């Protein structure tokens, strides 16, 4: 316990914003969500070593076997099997890989694009700002999921397509937030001084503005991970995500959809995995935002 608390306080002091006692931090930080997220990340990283069965291994004589506490269930398949006899637990563990990788990739890509454009818009102002912000407004109101479906049909679904489309949707939120911050930052003395000292715009943006907006980028990113997992699952559910046979949580819910009367576990367990992980990320994101930057509460 001590070491993780120490780590957290070190992070807090690094950002220099948290001024509450150790005990308060420890009591108020959501332990259970943190454990669930760690579990999901571990599952994604170690999937190939810890799965009890091959995620794609067919086992037709055990097809649609219930979970361990139902009639005919056994510890061999703790969460039951799907209609091809594949082990649900193993597929959920393997499915964590796609969820985590896509979420991480999307958030990183969107944060880089959005922060860059937001900084440029805020710093230069004028028509550059107008063009970028009109684009942002247009994007935010756009039915992103439909564009993703169009891409899936025309280009064909793959991890790259899913990550690109999702980042394409998400960058606008970063751009809007960062632009607002840069607008107020650039009026501050240290930016004026940097300009007087002959700093080029590129240098001012990269080494003076960027470090000051990083905090907001981190807060927004933790809040967007849950969104990214949900959208990936939605795309997979609709058959426009990472294509089979790779197991995805959304795809698994879709596979069991027609069988919920007779074999509810095929859909419900992967769905519960999505719900739990997204809920955990959202709770942690809320908490990190409150600790680091209460003024972002409206996000």
């Amino acid at each position: 316990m001590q070491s993780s608390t120490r780590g957290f306080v070190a992070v807090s002091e690094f950002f220099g914003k948290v001024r509450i006692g150790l005990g308060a931090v420890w009591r108020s930080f959501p332990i259970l969500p943190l454990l669930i997220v760690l579990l999901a990340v571990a599952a994604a990283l170690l999937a190939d070593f810890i799965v009890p069965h091959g995620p794609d291994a067919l086992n037709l004589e055990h097809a649609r076997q219930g979970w361990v506490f139902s009639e005919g269930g056994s510890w061999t398949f703790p969460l039951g099997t799907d209609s091809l006899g594949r082990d649900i637990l193993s597929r959920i563990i393997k499915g964590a890989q796609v969820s985590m990788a896509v979420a991480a990739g999307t958030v990183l890509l969107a944060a880089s694009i959005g922060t860059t454009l937001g900084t440029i818009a805020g710093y230069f102002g004028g028509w550059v700002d107008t063009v970028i912000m009109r684009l942002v407004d247009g994007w935010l109101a756009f039915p992103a999921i439909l564009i993703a479906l169009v891409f899936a049909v025309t280009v064909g679904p793959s991890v790259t397509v899913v990550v690109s489309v999702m980042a394409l949707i998400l960058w606008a939120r970063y751009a809007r937030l960062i632009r607002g911050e840069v607008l107020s930052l650039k009026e501050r003395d240290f930016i004026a001084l940097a300009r007087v000292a002959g700093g080029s715009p590129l240098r001012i943006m990269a080494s003076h503005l960027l470090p000051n907006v990083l905090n907001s980028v981190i807060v927004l990113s933790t809040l967007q991970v849950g969104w990214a997992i949900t959208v990936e699952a939605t795309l997979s559910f609709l058959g426009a995500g990472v294509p089979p046979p790779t197991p995805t949580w959304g795809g698994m819910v879709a596979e069991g959809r027609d069988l919920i009367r007779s074999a509810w576990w095929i859909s419900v367990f992967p769905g519960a995995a999505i719900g739990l992980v997204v809920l955990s990320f959202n709770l942690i994101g809320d908490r990190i935002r409150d600790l680091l930057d209460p003024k972002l509460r409206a996000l």
Partner: protein
Amino acid sequence: MTRVIASRALQALVTLLGVSVVVFALSQSTGNPVDVLLPVEATPEQRMQLIDELGLDEPLVVQYLTFLGNVVQGDFGKSIRTKLPVLELVVDRLGNSVLLVSTSLLFMLVFSLPLGVLAAVKRDTIVDRIAMGLAVLGQSLPPFFTGVLAIIVFSVIWQVLPAQGSGTWQHLLLPAATMGLFTGAGITRLMRSAMLEVLDSEYAKLARIKGASEMRVVWGHAFRNALIPVVTFVVLMYGVLVAAAVTTEVVFAWPGLGRLAFEAVLWRDFPVLQAVVILWAALIVVANLLVDLSYAVIDPRIRRSV
């Protein structure tokens, strides 16, 4: 005022043109339509004839303008799967989607807004905790999963509501509630924070000092002002609403636009998908336009800044 309307309408038009360019560009990457439409044993003459008919030998710009002209006239071509005119298919489903979305909005209005107000008024009490807990949960569960759960509970275990299909008001309840839970959760949270801010404002204090009852302060003074950021948020949420509608319609086999789009993906029926995307984008852009303009009418401060 006329200038404001004109500039907003122009922006909306530009956005729509942007959408049409994206869709047209993507349609170019679906492969050569001649290969799709003609059998493999077609003669070179037949191919040339079709290319000529479809205008495929024209420059891209001309092809785009033809496409745009057809779309404006409501001609979206024919469905690859059913061979019916796409417009017929789409119009057929449009009403159902509108019905579903408006019922879920009603759900939101009846449950989410009052819950958010209640949470703000009873701040830090058990009521607030429960309301916020529900809201976080609602935001975290994707509609396709809550839909599955709802079917298991209400149709399989209790057998009180139909699981799939449409036609009666009972069919509408589960999908509308599923959608409303997801979209309404964000509204509840936002309503709460907006209310907290407004209840702390000078005019709310003044109203209290003047002896207005707390009921009157909350509903008469605070509520209406807190609604402004919430309405803005609802507009920004159209994208979310569409996504929720697509998955909800798929889960409950609701014959709306979302399910049509899903079927089009399954069958790789590009003309249908294209029409749904353009139509939906148009609906969103027009709704945005109307909301923006209504702001300008309601609030003079905004009128000057648009």
